[in-house]
């Protein structure tokens, strides 16, 4: 059995945690002793994460319903919380990547708070789990982010800088081309929210809704594409041909409606939707974004 893979990346002091499908790059911007100590705590916590999830996989694959049995693991509970009260079909698995990122970040923060003098020496911390990111900022710090819509067309499509004053502390991206399966045709939907697990769910559902009927769009039952998918026989996107402008816009606006609902519900701060040649951005303007 393969051991978990954990090592500090010597050049830029990042921590690399890998086990099965989990691929994390974490960073603590702080003096060396603090960083080393926190990394060691993160590594210890990471050792059992996959096993904890696997132990309750059956529960986590169940479509959310108020009557479902409740799991026990800390990550599983985060996942469940992120999908609870959903009006559409969703399983807690939609939040797994973001929830694992949140858990590892919480471990770092928890350990940092234990020591009196640690926290003030840390500029920022982040946990990037395959593109789903949970981060913590100290006053005066900020987190920069770039999004690539389509890995097959290499270019940086958008850059964002998230300051301390923003409410955003979690980022997630969903699209039909990635590792996760999508019901929709978006190249990328990136969501900024207060936690990675919530961002994860929102990105998934918004991307699912970026959809139109158009000849050439191919979908197949999820289980045919990925064994034992929690999506069962629900059709997922496997191919999208080049679309005319009007259809592209129509599909994006379908997703935008869902994004607006999430913003109105106070669940997310902003969403970036992209499909081929077009992009849409929606932000929370309902109240002050930045606190004084």
């Amino acid at each position, binding site marked *: 059995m393969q051991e978990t893979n954990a090592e500090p*990346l010597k050049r830029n002091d*990042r921590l*690399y945690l890998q086990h099965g*499908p989990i691929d994390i790059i974490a960073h603590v911007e702080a003096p060396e002793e603090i960083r080393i100590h926190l990394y060691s705590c993160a590594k210890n916590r990471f050792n059992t994460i996959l096993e904890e999830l696997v132990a309750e996989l059956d529960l986590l694959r169940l479509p959310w319903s108020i009557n479902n049995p409740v799991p026990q693991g800390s990550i599983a509970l985060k996942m469940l919380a992120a999908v609870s009260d959903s009006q559409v079909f969703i399983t807690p698995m939609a939040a797994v990547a973001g929830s694992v990122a949140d858990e590892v970040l919480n471990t770092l923060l928890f350990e940092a708070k234990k020591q009196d003098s640690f926290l003030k020496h840390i500029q920022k911390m982040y946990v990037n789990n395959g593109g789903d990111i949970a981060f913590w900022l100290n006053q005066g710090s900020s987190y920069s982010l770039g999004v690539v819509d389509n890995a097959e067309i290499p*270019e940086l499509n958008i850059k964002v800088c998230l300051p301390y004053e923003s409410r955003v502390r979690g980022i997630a991206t969903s699209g039909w081309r990635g*590792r996760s399966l999508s019901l929709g045709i978006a190249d990328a939907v990136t969501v900024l929210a207060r936690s990675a697990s919530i961002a994860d769910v929102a990105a998934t559902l918004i991307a699912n809704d970026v959809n139109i009927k158009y000849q050439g769009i191919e979908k197949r039952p999820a289980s045919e594409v990925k064994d034992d998918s929690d999506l069962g026989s629900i059709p997922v996107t496997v191919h999208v041909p080049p679309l005319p402008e009007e259809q592209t816009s129509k599909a994006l606006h379908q997703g935008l409606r869902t994004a607006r609902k999430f913003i109105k519900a106070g669940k997310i701060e902003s969403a970036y939707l992209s499909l081929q040649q077009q992009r849409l951005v929606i932000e929370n303007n309902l109240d002050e974004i930045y606190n004084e």
Partner: protein
Amino acid sequence: MVSNSEEMSTSSEKVNCDACPILCRISPGKTGSCDRYGNFNGKLQRIDPVILTQNVIDQNEAVVPFEKQTKKWDGSVLNPESIFPTALGAGTTYPDYKPAPFIIASRHHDVDMVTVVTEGIFSYCSYKIKIDTDRYVGPEKASVRCQGEEVGHVITAEYGSQMLSLGGVHHLTGGSKQEGRVTCQMMMDLGNKKSVEFEVDEGSRLVIKAGSAPIIDGEQEERMRVGCGSATIGIFAKQWHGHVDEVIVVDEHITGMLSEHQAGRFLGMEPSGIRVRGRRSTPGRYFQVANPGHGWGGTDISNPLEIIDRIKKGVTYPGLRLLMVSTTGEDATYFVFDENLKPCEQKMPKILQKVVDRIGENCEPACSSVLFMAGAGGSLRAGVTENPVSLTRSVQNLLTRITCGGAPVYVWPGGGITIMVDVTKMPENSFGSVPTPAIVAPIEFTMNLSDFEALGGHMEQVQNLEDLTQQRETLIAQWNQDNPWPYN
């Protein structure tokens, strides 16, 4: 990259993967939860294996999937001295990196060697293309386009070849996004030995594929000319002597005339009185006889008699035998001057046909050569050593040998490490890309272990081949016998 639509293989057996606690049971043609392992041909295989190359003369086909179930690598099957680790599949973490993915120690000829293996990420890289052809492809400096986007330009023509420089940091990142995308895809395709179409401004349409004959304006080139008109005369003068009174070798650069040429004079040939148009350079050598084109000898001439400006009465005589031929021997006509001093086409005598054919035989097959050129002088070096400039010096001092996927490279003189490598010598699918856009290509540094230590190499990262095969799935491919063995 794993696509979302996998083909189903014939077997319906699922395979068990025990690489992690999820314990996926994977259907044929699919991948597990991690997308690192999949079920291909009924076997559990790593999707992105590291490729080791094996130099074993007798082995015919040596691609051996390393199965996870086999924990111990059986050293008796493969002699470690016959293995060279290439950087294919070695991977690197983008945009940051850790010490080069593999630093492998091995022993060769009783010397401890080390090979540092990494997939390098190159923003500053390009291709130099040598197209063997007489045909005109376009003026120097002209832009070369791919799908309408500027991706390079025509550079200085060389002997028997037209030259292009394609790609580079400015087309990749300095222009529009579309230009960058097209440039990146084009660079990957060219490097991976695929066929790519180009259009040259004020020039031709080209189809270039490394190691294959170029297709210029829809026509596949067959041969490279043996030389310019003058060179051809110099080579074959003696073989024509006595069988013909004048030979004109038509070329878009220098058209040669045998009787006037040094070679003909040396054989004591008499002047023929035939004067070709154009500008005489030295006796028997004429510039600008014709323009570049798609006819005889890379010129725009289809009727060779066009180039004869005038004849000198009293010198030219009835019965004078004239051979006109192109520098590839593909076009040739034999004339005999009649009593009115008009050249009349006649059947080519066998003896002359033989020499014309020989010209053809001496022409090598036309080929497009694709050389990848890149600078490995940047942060990539930090994956090798704590003191990057010491690696540069050791390369310049020939203590370190660089290869790309095992293929030998030329290192340019001067500062930095700028390499050039023939892509046909590299393994299949050596080139990839990252979103910058930038190109990913394999690069290996081989040196003595002691030199590695002296230049500040990451000694704590050194591992044996055996250790590597425990950690990562490895495929063993046949070493390209035309490449020099890096451990010699």
